[in-house]
């Protein structure tokens, strides 16, 4: 594709340099953090302030690098799975295959709460059943790359994979339940009337270079927006890591408190837009003895229960269906929380 942009250095050379720079920074982050906190600043390992500073100067570059690297790669991959193609793959399937497929595709398909409505209408138009559509609407925001990257980087692959599996389970079961409730009459009438207008998705003929540029510009913009929240979050996390006594966290968020799971789910609702900044705080709390199930429930509620999304969905579905959607997701998250608190006490 022709562009008016003047490229001074060859594009793929710049990409290569960026990849090498990323790898060097990745392997240098940990030794540099130790050197900075304990040699340059002269802090003592094991002291409150020393541990807090080391935590901060290690986590910030690590999270930043992970976001820049992985979000770019994920954005690049999911460029090949636009919802316009996905709905075609989902329309003709049976109930179970369609629901499982929709939940899985939710991982790779881009989603933001403002595209929920066109997505919903587009799915319904193409004849995708309501339950399958909701499996997608649950999974897509919950199992998203930013949450997975932060979980992987800060908690390790175990928790990230458990989170992904739990999110998919809630989406599949939620989709199947909504499908069985036969709530089609709670979809706004004009949505059914729109049927047949769409489907004329054009082929944009993107070159590999276009795709890499798109992914990088999306990632830069995203990181710029969420970085302040992440810095504050890691700062609070570092403070908890260095100063908050373990006994306090165990008493409130530990496995001994049966009300911890519903409490964190409620707490998570207003934090929706700040998931990126809250994850580092949650990591510090987990390190101080918060139960695994409680942690998972908190994370899932933060990404999946979004009041702005429910309000915007009001444009296409009526209150009883939104209420059913919110209730089913909340129950699913509570069950995951209690299950993991039971399995990993």
């Amino acid at each position, binding site marked *: 594709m022709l*562009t008016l*942009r003047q490229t001074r250095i060859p594009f793929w050379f710049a990409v290569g340099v960026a990849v090498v720079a990323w790898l060097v920074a990745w392997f240098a982050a940990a030794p540099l953090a130790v050197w900075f906190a304990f040699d340059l600043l002269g802090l003592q390992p094991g002291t409150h302030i020393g541990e807090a500073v080391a935590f901060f100067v290690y986590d910030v570059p690590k999270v930043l690098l992970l976001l820049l690297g992985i979000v770019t790669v994920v954005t690049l991959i999911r460029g090949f799975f636009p919802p*316009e193609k996905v709905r075609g793959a989902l329309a003709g399937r049976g109930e179970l295959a369609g629901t499982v497929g929709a939940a899985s595709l939710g991982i790779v398909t881009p989603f933001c709460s403002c*595209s929920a409505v066109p997505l919903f209408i587009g799915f319904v138009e193409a004849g995708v059943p309501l339950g399958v559509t909701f499996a997608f609407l649950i999974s897509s925001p919950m199992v998203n790359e930013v949450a997975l990257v932060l979980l992987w980087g800060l908690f390790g692959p175990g928790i990230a994979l458990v989170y992904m599996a739990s999110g998919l389970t809630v989406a599949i079961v939620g989709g199947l339940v909504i499908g069985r409730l036969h709530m089609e009459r709670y979809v706004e009438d004009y949505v059914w009337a729109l049927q047949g207008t769409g489907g004329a998705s054009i082929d944009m003929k993107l070159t590999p270079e276009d795709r890499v540029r798109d992914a990088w510009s999306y990632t830069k913009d995203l990181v710029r927006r969420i970085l302040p929240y992440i810095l504050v979050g890691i700062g609070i996390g570092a403070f908890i890591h260095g100063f908050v006594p373990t006994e306090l966290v165990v008493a409130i968020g530990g496995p001994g408190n049966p009300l911890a799971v519903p409490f964190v789910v409620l707490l998570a609702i207003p934090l929706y837009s700040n998931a990126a900044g809250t994850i580092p705080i949650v990591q510090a709390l987990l390190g101080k003895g918060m139960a695994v199930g409680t942690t998972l429930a908190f994370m899932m509620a933060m990404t999946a229960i979004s009041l702005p999304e429910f309000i915007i969905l009001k444009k296409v579905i009526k209150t009883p269906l939104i209420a059913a959607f919110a209730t089913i997701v909340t129950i699913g998250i509570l069950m995951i929380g209690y299950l993991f608190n039971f399995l990993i006490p």
Partner: protein
Amino acid sequence: MKTIEVLGPGCNNCKRLEANAREAVAMAGVEAEVVKVTDFAQIMTYGIMSTPGLVIDGKVVSYGRVPSAGDIATWLAEPATA
């Protein structure tokens, strides 16, 4: 006089696309008007599902991505084909 429509409810990517479109108009030096389309029923008539969408003279040129001002300027410079 060309008409550029930015399809999207007003989220972050829609705002970036609108900014790029305005920059492209200046870059290409053509006379064009940038219109925002925020009504969902109207957006859906273009047959797209992923916002933001970009429409030049009634023809969808991109959706679900934010093309650069340079790309949009190239499309503006092309003679109308639709």
